[in-house]
């Protein structure tokens, strides 16, 4: 988008003759001051004026700045898509401010109308700039280089000397030296003066255009992805099988164009989950879920899912996002009827010790109230008798223990309202409490280890801790645009590199004769953007034409530049 460029190295406002009528200036009007509105003009003129403003470099720059600024609230306020729990907490902490922030979209900045407005305007501006610019570039690619200006005096990089080489030979030599350039040769009317216009590095502009178009492609690919993707989360306990259908997911969301029938019906059984921890630091070292995938055609395949190594199957990717323990318990009612039996996933609260929290809901009691057990699971439990608390000291299941509060009443499951499986709705329930050692009323806790059966208080029933399987939390995602997103991103990177590092140069060489019949060479070079090698390039081109005196100059210069490597070698030798 850097149209309206001026050859770098020029004193401000001091353009050399621009005989090529480079039209890029008009595609990004860089008026010195924003033009006042076209007073007295009709709506069409206004539209044109608005369009010119929008596609101007100055507005593009302001939009870029604005984009940086409007992205920042996303880090000041909790964002719902990233962390809904912290948004809820923010509502509790700032009850009066939160609704205001909500209305302005500050809890979901990157989907807010104002953020979208900024980037859409920016992309509109980009397209408005880059399309005409691409057309210009295509034209330029078909045209020979522009004719040389009549005088070179205003170019900062130029040279002039009398050459010992004969005129025609000099033209041939210069043409050879300009190999790799596109060339336009102009012979003067009398045949005495020949001018070579040469240009190279069109890839610089091509790269610039590719970069900007790739960004547009990227935006379209990302946008399309949000329409056709799906994402689901599921918890699978060791030994259980997950079948890929929407009802099996614990949570599922998809883009509006996603076809539910499009879910590929593969199945996946979690055979085993293993974890490893660093013995010294206790830090997690490895998580590994071994699964058996059954393709729709019945083909079975053992696979391993690890962090950083998702499983690609059925068009979707399966990521290992979490894990934990799912104590397998059986709870009976007062008469010994089984009210609930099975593994219950507990959510890890502390990643270092795997202190986990969870609830066991027992809806199917034959007699008495429904039972709810809520509490913690500790993989390596240590009970502190003094404070009557228990905690875990290691994520490994060395001394597993369940510590549960007991509730009875109505679990509220029959209303048909979806419930959080990790929370007990205690609205219609009562906790079993009893006077503690200090005489104060305290909740009664049930403590149960694997293999044990413990009576629940108040004769409510029993709980048996059968087994301790692990569970994994899996994320399944499908987004067919991923390869496109990557392609456009890499194209942008390539285009950007070309536009920044490939030099675009024009070299003009005019070869004529003075009254004495000597060959006179005048030359100039011009670059787009910053080009530290421009002077060197002109020197290189003119080198074969230089007079003998110039040769000694050249030698001296070689000596000078030659010194640097020598010195570096010396230093290198000393260092070695």
């Amino acid at each position, binding site marked *: 988008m850097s149209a309206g460029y001026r050859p770098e190295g020029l004193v401000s406002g001091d353009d050399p003759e621009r005989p090529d009528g480079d039209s890029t200036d008009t595609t990004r009007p860089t008026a010195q001051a924003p033009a006042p509105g076209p007073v007295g003009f009709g709506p069409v003129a206004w539209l044109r004026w608005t369009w010119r403003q929008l596609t101007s470099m*100055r507005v593009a*720059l302001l939009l*870029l700045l604005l984009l940086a600024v409007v992205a920042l609230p996303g880090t000041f306020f909790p964002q719902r898509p*990233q962390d809904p729990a912290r948004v809820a907490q923010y509502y509790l902490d700032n009850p009066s401010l939160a609704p205001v922030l909500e209305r302005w979209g500050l809890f979901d*900045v990157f989907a807010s109308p104002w953020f979208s407005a900024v980037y859409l305007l920016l992309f509109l501006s980009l397209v408005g700039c880059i399309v005409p610019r691409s057309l210009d570039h295509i034209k330029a690619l078909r045209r020979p280089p522009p004719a040389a200006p009549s005088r070179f005096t205003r170019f900062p990089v130029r040279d002039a000397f009398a050459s010992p080489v004969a005129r025609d030979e000099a033209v041939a030599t210069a043409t050879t030296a300009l190999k790799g350039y596109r060339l336009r040769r102009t012979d003067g009317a009398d045949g005495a003066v020949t001018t070579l216009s040469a240009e190279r590095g069109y890839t610089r502009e091509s790269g610039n255009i590719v970069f900007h178009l790739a960004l547009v492609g990227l935006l379209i690919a990302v946008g399309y992805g949000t329409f056709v993707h799906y994402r689901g989360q599921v918890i699978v306990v060791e030994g259980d099988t997950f079948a890929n259908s929407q009802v099996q997911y614990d949570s599922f969301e998809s883009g509006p164009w996603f076809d539910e029938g499009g879910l590929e019906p593969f199945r996946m059984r979690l055979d085993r989950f293993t974890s490893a921890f*660093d013995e010294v630091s206790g830090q997690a070292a490895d998580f590994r879920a071994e699964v058996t995938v059954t393709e729709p055609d019945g083909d079975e395949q053992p696979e391993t899912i690890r962090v950083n190594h998702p499983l690609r199957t059925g068009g979707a990717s399966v990521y290992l996002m979490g894990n934990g323990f799912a104590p397998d318990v059986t709870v009976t009612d007062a008469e010994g009827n089984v009210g609930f039996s099975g593994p219950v996933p507990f959510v890890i609260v502390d990643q270092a010790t795997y202190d986990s929290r969870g609830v066991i809901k027992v809806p199917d009691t034959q007699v008495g109230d429904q039972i709810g057990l809520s509490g913690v699971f500790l993989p390596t439990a240590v009970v502190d008798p003094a404070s009557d608390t228990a905690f875990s000291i290691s994520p490994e299941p060395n001394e597993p223990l369940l510590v549960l509060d007991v509730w009875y009443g109505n679990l509220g499951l029959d209303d048909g309202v979806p419930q959080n499986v990790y929370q007990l709705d205690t609205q219609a329930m009562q906790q079993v409490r009893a006077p503690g050692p200090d005489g104060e009323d305290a909740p009664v806790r049930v403590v149960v280890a694997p293999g044990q059966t413990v009576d629940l208080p108040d004769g409510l029933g029993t709980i048996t801790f059968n087994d301790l399987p692990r569970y994994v939390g899996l994320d399944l*995602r499908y987004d067919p645009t991923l390869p496109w997103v990557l392609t456009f991103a890499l194209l942008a*990177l390539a285009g950007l590199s070309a536009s920044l590092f490939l030099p675009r140069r024009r070299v003009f060489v005019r070869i004529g004769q003075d009254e004495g019949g000597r060959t006179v060479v005048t030359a100039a070079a011009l670059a787009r953007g910053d080009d530290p090698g421009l002077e*060197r390039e002109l020197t290189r081109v003119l080198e074969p034409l230089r007079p003998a005196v110039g040769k000694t100059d050249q030698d001296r210069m070689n000596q000078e530049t030659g010194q640097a490597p020598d010195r570096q070698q010396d230093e290198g030798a000393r260092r070695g």
Partner: protein
Amino acid sequence: MAELGQISLYLVTAAMTAYLIATIAFAIDFSRLAADRPSRVSRTADARELVSAGVADAPVVAARPVADAPLPPVRRAAAIGQSTFTVAVLMLVAGVVTRGFAAGRVPWANMYEFTTVSVVVASVVFLGIQRRRDVRFLGTFISLFALLALFLALAVLYTDPTAVQPALQSYWLVIHVAIATSGMGVFAVAATVSGLQLAKDRAIGRGTQGRILSSLPTSADLERLAFRINAVGFVLWTFVLISGAIWAEHAWGRYWGWDAKEVWSFVIWVVYAAYLHARSTRGWEGRRAAWFSVAGFASILINYYVVNLFVNSLHSYSGV
């Protein structure tokens, strides 16, 4: 392993000492620069001045250095600064390498290590430019930056070398993080140059260009130098975003999720994009563009120190 970690620590501390000496030596050189200024100005700049002073149509040789310009006098303090600086970099590199062996992985997986690697890259960029042209005036600032960054790393960010958690066990740790830390080092050098350019511009604007500032290259030269470094940095940062997105897709199941770190990395990218555009917008080039370069590096510092240490982010691997 513990011994290696200890050796690494000694090397880093020794490097700090060398950086301290380099800072002082460069500062002495810097303060002396003004005394015989005319011979310090870059020779090509001299040549250009001659050109503009010459008769307009006379054949002039602009492309070549003025051969009989007086040789610059010996700058002993700068020479000392440069050699101690080189020693500091070598010791720091050794410190980083031993740290890698001590931890049994690449030595850039927590904030202490990011900092040491960034300092290495910034130092190497400085020495690399120094090979091609005289930028010893930057020495004071680069070694001071190195010193402060390393001090902060040792005093606040230090952690013992350990293996990394599963989320970091990926070859993208090698690529993505290496480029990100390198990008920080590159941008640091560019921001230093831009800062000097701004200081100089301001002094010229007030007409009170002091001895030291007047001994620096012209604002235009500083601007071009900063741009060349920033251009490299911008390409690196673009790659950081792309490689980060690829890694995020592998590790977290999505390539972009507006995590705090992602937001700031995006902001940094946009600020440097604005910098590149400002350079070619009339009325914004030069001084205003330099502010973007400085603002970009400020965002990098925020992204590094504030987001890593104080913001709840998925990138909380600082290990502090």
